[in-house]
Each structure stands twice: as structure tokens, then as C-alpha cells.
């Protein structure tokens, strides 16, 4: 039962109860109703209560917690939210902003870290940090009200008032593609209503729709498993469909999702992208290493030899607290550096292997500018807007959006075949306009080479740049699962069907 149905049930059940039951149930029902009502307000009507929490997206989970907080009715609290608009269609975003305003009007201060245009424009106060990322950032570029912001010429203001935009070249030029396409017929998984969908190849395709409309079911649960089974003998079963045509036109599929790149603190962007092997090789070839006969394993924090044995290369120690959660303390022997003293004595350009792991990718790009093998791999990380991550940042502290971009970068560093199909689920998560521009540049380059990119996205800056839009909906849950519109952004905007067309038309007219 989804939350909307449950809410209706709790509202209608009372007259059907006996006097005794009503007395008992009264308070409980009231409590259930308020909780559910807040969940409806933040746009989660399509979830069901037995949906496992691990299958929720980060945005959904955050909104659930938000709903619980609004329900608590505290005052004078400072709420800090990290990008609540992630995964929200424009329509749901409006609802979210309303609930944040409600929280504010209840006497609280709400501080939101956000990139969303509407959220910024609804704010009472804006703090813009920058001007660039990492070392070149960290300054207050602007603080004040929205009208004041719009009159300045910061990057953010530029995007907000339309002086800058997230695309290069002419927006209305759409690629023709290669005339071939993959056609999926009779998709019936979850809420899909037996729809036939055509994915034209050689284009940037954007699948849109409100939360819960069936976008992910179509792409991640149907199309992707079919193709993975075909190419990689994958075991994941696709959801129900009748037939598929056109698989022969592609020869590789790359799925870049938001699942974590690793759940172990020993995994990090450097190990995931494989660049760490190259860095270790570089250290091995240093004269100092040769004198000491160090092998690559010496510079790994995962095998004994070079790592700090006190903490086993973790950099910290876990202290078990019995009935309390474990506490992590930095290892007192290596002081969190993960290596023993001898290993750290080997330095490249004055930096030890631990110093390299502690570098941000931006710093590493400068540092390794003369080492092409390493540079190529970390340059793509910078290209997808991850310059601020540290090479050795444990993957447990990397967000879903960041994981996705790490994966994307890893794929980009490999050679593409020119007939590859890339699937990305909300790649703009956590990205500022400027980062989106960079990312779109990367995706466009892939398409230019003949590849196909399918993006599930809510961000209008991405949608308007697509060559082809597939809009699923019109509503979430049972009210969705139909093909509302497809075509170029102009065609979809002109169709007047569904929520996407309306917001897209506004966006296109702004340009």
C-alpha cells in the first residue's frame, strides 16, 4: 500500500470502528496521520512502508527525515540540509520549498546547501562561496538577499540571470544521431503500462518524469539488465517486457549508477580508478626506492611491508565500546598516515606516498603534470567536477553523486568503442551550474564520437540540452508508467502534455 492509500485509509477507517476501538485508536491514528501527511507534503506519496530503506535514494531518505522533523514542531532550531532537491522533479521541488518555508515560518532557521535555481530564488538570504573549487575557493563571494545577488556578477548570479549558461554552442541544434535505434516493446515492470519505447542511437537521450513515474524501472530495471545479459552474461533478470530490437547496433554498455564505489574504508578514488597502481609504480622507480629495493607492495596500505602495522594500514583504530557505537581514533603510531616511517622517507618532489593520498585531485593534477599515465586518469576526475576530492578519501565518505562521477571518470579514461551505450542516473547530483557545464561537455564529447548516452534526469539544464527526451508519467506510482511525450526538447515543450513539458517550455523561453 503506498503512503497516499494508507493516508486515505487512516482518514476513512474511524466510522467503521466500534466505540471501544475508536477510543483506543484515536490517538494512534492521529499520530499516524500527521506523520503520513508530512510525507505527502514532501512528495513521497508513492513509497510504501515496507520498502527497504537501503533501496531509497539519498534524496528520498533525506526527505523522510525532513518529514519527521517538520512533524516534531520544535522552534528556534537551526536546520541544516544538504541538497534536499536531489532526485526531485521540478513539480515536487516546488512542494519541497513550501515545506521548508513552513519549517521557517514555524520559527526555525533553515540553512540549505543547494544548487537549485528555484531554491535559490526562494531564499531570504544567500551565501555564495567560491570563486572556484578547492584551493581557489573558500572565500565568500557574496552574501545578501536574492535581488542583491542578481545585481552582482558572480558565477552563480551569471547563471541565475541568464548571462551564463550550461551549454556551449547553439542550444537549438540537435544531433541527428545515426538513424538506428533500440526499440523496447511492452514494458510492464512495476507500474509501467506495457509501453513501447524507442531509444534513438548516437544521441544524448534524457528520460524524465516525476519521482516514482517509472523512469528507473524502464532504464535501470528493464533496458540495462537486458543488455547486460546480452553482453556480459549478467545474472540480473530484467523486469517484464515483450521484445527488444536493435541490440546489434551497440557493442558495449556502461552503467554508471549511484551505488557506492566500495564500502570499505580501504577503497578510495585512487584505488577505484586504478591510478594508485601507477602512483606506486612511480614511487618504486625513484632512486631512493631502488637503493632500498622497494617493490610496489611497499607502497600499499593493504599488505604488510610498507604499511603501519599498528593499525594495519587503516590510519585509525577502532575502539569497541561494548554497548555504545565503536569509536575511531587516529592511529597513534603513524598518526593517521597509514605507512611506516621507512616508507614515508621515500619522497617524490618532496611528497611521500601518504602526502599524495592526502592531496585533492586538483592538487594532484598540478603535481603529476609531467607523468602522463597518472595525469590522464586523474584529469578525467577533474573533468567530471571532482577536483575537490582527495585521492585517498575513504569511499565510505563519498556521496552517491560523487561515486557516480568517480565511475564515470573511470569509464571515460578507458577507450570507448564508438558504439557504446552509457546509462547515467542523475549525474548532476550535487553539481553547481558551472560543474554541470563541465559535465555536459564530457557527455557531449562522448556522443560526438558516435556513442549513445541515456541520462535519467530532473535538471532542466540537462534536459534542455538533450537530443531526445522520453517523458514517463504523468504522475508517480499507479498514476504513472505511461509514455507521455517523446521527441526533441522543442517538440516535448510544444506537446503541452505532462509536467515536464510545462517546466521545459518555461526554461526554453528563458533562453
Amino acid at each position, binding site marked *: 500500500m503506498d503512503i497516499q492509500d494508507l493516508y486515505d485509509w487512516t482518514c476513512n477507517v474511524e466510522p467503521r470502528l466500534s466505540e471501544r476501538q475508536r477510543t483506543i485508536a484515536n490517538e494512534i491514528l492521529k499520530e499516524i496521520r500527521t506523520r503520513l501527511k508530512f510525507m505527502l507534503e514532501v512528495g513521497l506519496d508513492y513509497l510504501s*512502508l*515496507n520498502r527497504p530503506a537501503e533501496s531509497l535514494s539519498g534524496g528520498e531518505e533525506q526527505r523522510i527525515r525532513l518529514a519527521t522533523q517538520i512533524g516534531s514542531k520544535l522552534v528556534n532550531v537551526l536546520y541544516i540540509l*544538504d541538497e534536499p532537491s536531489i532526485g526531485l522533479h521540478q513539480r515536487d521541488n516546488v512542494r519541497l520549498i513550501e515545506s521548508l518555508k513552513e519549517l*521557517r515560518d514555524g520559527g526555525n532557521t533553515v540553512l540549505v546547501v543547494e544548487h537549485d535555481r528555484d531554491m535559490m530564488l526562494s531564499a531570504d538570504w544567500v551565501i555564495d562561496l567560491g570563486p572556484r573549487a578547492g584551493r581557489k575557493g*573558500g572565500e565568500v563571494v557574496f552574501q545578501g538577499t536574492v535581488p542583491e545577488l542578481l545585481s552582482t556578477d558572480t558565477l552563480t548570479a551569471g547563471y541565475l540571470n541568464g548571462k551564463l549558461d550550461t551549454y556551449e554552442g547553439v542550444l537549438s541544434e540537435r544531433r541527428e544521431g545515426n538513424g538506428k535505434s533500440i526499440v523496447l516493446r511492452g514494458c510492464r515492470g512495476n507500474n509501467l503500462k506495457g509501453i513501447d519505447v524507442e531509444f534513438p542511437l548516437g544521441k544524448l537521450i534524457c528520460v524524465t518524469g516525476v519521482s516514482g513515474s517509472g523512469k528507473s524501472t524502464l532504464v535501470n530495471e528493464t533496458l540495462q539488465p537486458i543488455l547486460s545479459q546480452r553482453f556480459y552474461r549478467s545474472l540480473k533478470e530484467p523486469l517484464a517486457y515483450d521484445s527488444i530490437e536493435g541490440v546489434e547496433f551497440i557493442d558495449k554498455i556502461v552503467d554508471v549508477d549511484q551505488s557506492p564505489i566500495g564500502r570499505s574504508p580501504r577503497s578510495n578514488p585512487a584505488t577505484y580508478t586504478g591510478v594508485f597502481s601507477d602512483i606506486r609504480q612511480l614511487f618504486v622507480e625513484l632512486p631512493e626506492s631502488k637503493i632500498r629495493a622497494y617493490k610496489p607492495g611497499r607502497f600499499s596500505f593493504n599488505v604488510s611491508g610498507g604499511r603501519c602495522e599498528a593499525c594495519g594500514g587503516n590510519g585509525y583504530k577502532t575502539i569497541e565500546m561494548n554497548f555504545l557505537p565503536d569509536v575511531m581514533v587516529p592511529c597513534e603510531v603513524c598518526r593517521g598516515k597509514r605507512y611506516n616511517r621507512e616508507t614515508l622517507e621515500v619522497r617524490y618532489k618532496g611528497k611521500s606516498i601518504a602526502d599524495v593520498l592526502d592531496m585533492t585531485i586538483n592538487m594532484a593534477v598540478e603535481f603529476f603534470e609531467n607523468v602522463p599515465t597518472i595525469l590522464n586518469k586523474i584529469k578525467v576526475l577533474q573533468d567530471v567536477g571532482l577536483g575537490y576530492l582527495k585521492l585517498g578519501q575513504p569511499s565510505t565518505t563519498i556521496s552517491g553523486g560523487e561515486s557516480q562521477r568517480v565511475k564515470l571518470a573511470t569509464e571515460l579514461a578507458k577507450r570507448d568503442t564508438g558504439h557504446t551505450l552509457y546509462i547515467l542516473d542523475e549525474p548532476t547530483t550535487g553539481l553547481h551550474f558551472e560543474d554541470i557545464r563541465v559535465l555536459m561537455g564530457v557527455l557531449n564529447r562522448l556522443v560526438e564520437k558516435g556513442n549513445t548516452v541515456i541520462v535519467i534526469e530532473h535538471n532542466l539544464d540537462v534536459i534542455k540540452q538533450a537530443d531526445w527526451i522520453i517523458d514517463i508519467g504523468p504522475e508517480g506510482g499507479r498514476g504513472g508508467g505511461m509514455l507521455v511525450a517523446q521527441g526533441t526538447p522543442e517538440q516535448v515543450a510544444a506537446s503541452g502534455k505532462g509536467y515536464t513539458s510545462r517546466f521545459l517550455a518555461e526554461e526554453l523561453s528563458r533562453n
Partner: protein
Amino acid sequence: MDKSKIIVTGARSNNLKNIDVEIPHKSLTVVTGLSGSGKSSLAFDTIYAEGQRRYIETFSAYARNFLGNLERPDVDRITGLSPVISIEQKTTNRNPRSTVGTVTEVYDYLRLLFARAGEAYSYLSGQKMVKFTEEQIINLIINDYEGQKIYVLAPLVRNRKGHYKELFESIRRKGYINVRVDGELREVKPGMKLDRYRNHDIEVVIEKLVVNEKYRHRLTESVALAMKQGEGIMMILSMPEETIPGRPEPGVLRHYSKRLMCPETGISYRDPAPHNFSFNSPQGFCPKCKGLGYISAVDEDKVLPDRTLSVRKGAIAPLGPFKNTLIFRQITALLNKYDYTLDTPIADMTNDVVDELLNGSDDRIKVQITGINSEADAVFMEYEGVVKYVRSLQQQTDLSAAEQKWADQFAVTSWHRWIFRTSMTGPVTWSRV
């Protein structure tokens, strides 16, 4: 001090460059900037960290021991800070038992609602379950059985194996004369016992009487006693010889209980408590999947993908072609027993043999073990079967990711629905009008 604002002076966390920021109270403030420009450093590492630190400082030194010392954020001064609650996206909860319902706590309320205001229906007859007081039971009996001769019974054993010698002895010592064993009335004799390998129902006959308003006192005592012996449940059996129209059929049992009970089949439950509705509690979850909703099993078609192959050629996918290992020796011995060889295609074997190959057998088979580090050349051992072999590998926790994947490919995960279960009876469905 300006009380209408949060004022941050000299923030230097991470890449922040000694910045000063003001945030008006009761406002919706957006912090924006490029990825990595320091938004999170300001919002989380400075403002949230300081708020959290100040909160924790209010605890006693002893309590702070357990919380770990929060580092002071690198900032000169923050004034006007109110209590901080952070709503982050990062999910730390990767437990399959955590659901939307448990996170929002709506589930807890629903459990309470079903337990306290729900009505129970029998899973066998679909009838609404009822609950009586002793007084009501007596009135019902007098009403229904007026003038009839009845037995008042208290159930002691329900569908359990055993010879119950001690039970009969203690019944006899308590002074009861008759028992009803598996539907048959018998006299309790010294040294009486039952077939220990069969399931039995045993009730003790508390009283034989003719129901009449003037014996109400006697009936009241008997009912109280029966309730005590039967732990809240009692039965009435009317004498078989008399048939009165409109009355309960003679010889038919009726159940009465102080607990929730189905009047037709007599199954009874304890009063529902919220934990009965929890899929995380042994009192509530499905015993097979332990409330996870899915179980993992080994798929025979994946273990034997091509039945035209022989064992030697690799018919058993998890094991591959013949190698000189113990499990292949066992299989050789097993096949020899049925006059097959390693070269017999699976399709030519009888289903019984294939089943034994997969699921093992209890019989000990003679296995040649020459060459496997042993002095004896043959031993008798049990063969556990390929399925169990794969399962045991699957459940080993120290498998590498690749090994885990290998074992998982022979498994199917099947979903199954939660059924709720009380500790004393079979699966129960509690429902609500």
C-alpha cells in the same frame, strides 16, 4: 550582541579563507557555490560541528567519554547559534530490516494500532476470534447445554509426541479418574503410557455433570479448575447418546477460552502485542525467512545446466570437470553403487540417483581415498550432496567477492510474503475490519 543573526567570524575549516558570514534567524538561507568551493565546510564542518560540540559540552565529563571528543572547528567565534539539527543525505543504514515504515516510525504506531484495536480472525476457519470471561463461559454453557450431560475437559497435550507416563501419574495423584486420549475416553491406570513415537492429544476430564441452573455453583468450580489445568483453555464434550434438536451436536467438542480463540477449531492465541506485528521479532516474523521476505536457495537447473553431459565432462557446474578431489571420489562411489560411471550422462540416470547426487544421502558409502594423504585406502562416509556443498560455501563469511559471486550464481533468491506467527501456534493472520 545582535540576537537576530547567527554570526560566524574567521572560519578556516578545510579550504575556507578566514571568512565572516551572517545568517539571519528565521530565514531560509541558501549556501551555494561550485562543488568543492567550501559550502559543506561552512555548513557542516563549521556551523553544525560547533552546534553539536556545544550541545555535547553540556553533558557530564563521564558521558562525554563515550561520545568521543568533538574537535573544535577552526573558527574564531560563532554567536547567536541555536540548537542544530542536520538532515544529511548520506545513508549509513544499509540494513535490510530497515524500511520506510521503521525509519518514519509509522510502523511502530501501526503495530500498536493492530495489537490494541485489531480484531483477530482464525487462519483456519476465517472466523472472528472471541475471548470470554469465566462468567460468560458459564452462562454460555448453561444456555447451550441445559439438561444435557457433559464432560468438562482441560487440554494438557496438543499434538505432541511422547509416552506421557509421568503426566498420567501426576493426573492420577491429583485424583482425576478419566482422561480423553486422542478423542477416546479412558480411565487413568497406574503405569499407563502411550506410543512415544506418535502425536497425541490429551485432555483430563475435570467433571462429568448434567447442566442445570441449580448446579451453577458446581459448574463454576469445574470451569475455574479446568481453566487452571488447561492454562486458559477448556472444552465441553456433550454425552454422545442424547440428541436434542437445536442444541450442539452430541459428541462434538466446543472450545472455550479466556484468551483469543476460534470457536470452531479451538486454536487460541495470546493477546496480540505490538511485537507480534513486527517482522523483526521472533514473535512476529515468518520462521522461514526470519522476516526478511526473501530466502536464498540453490537452483538445480543452474547446478546441472546441461544434462546431456557426464559428471566427468563437467555436468555439475559448480564442480566443473573431473578433478582428483574428495567430492569427486564420493560421487564416483555413489555412482558405482547404482552401476553408473562418471561417463554416464546425467539424462540417463534415474531421478532418484540425480536427487541423491544433488541432495546427498544418509547412507554411508565406501569411498576410495588412496592418494589423498591417508594410509587407509577406503573409508565409509556420508555424502552431503552438491546442493549442500554450494550452500555451505555460500554461507561462509570469509569468501572473497569473486568466490561469493561464484556461489551466488547457483542460487535463486525467492521473495516470499511475511506471515505473522505467534509463539504458541501456527501462522496467524490478524486483520482488522
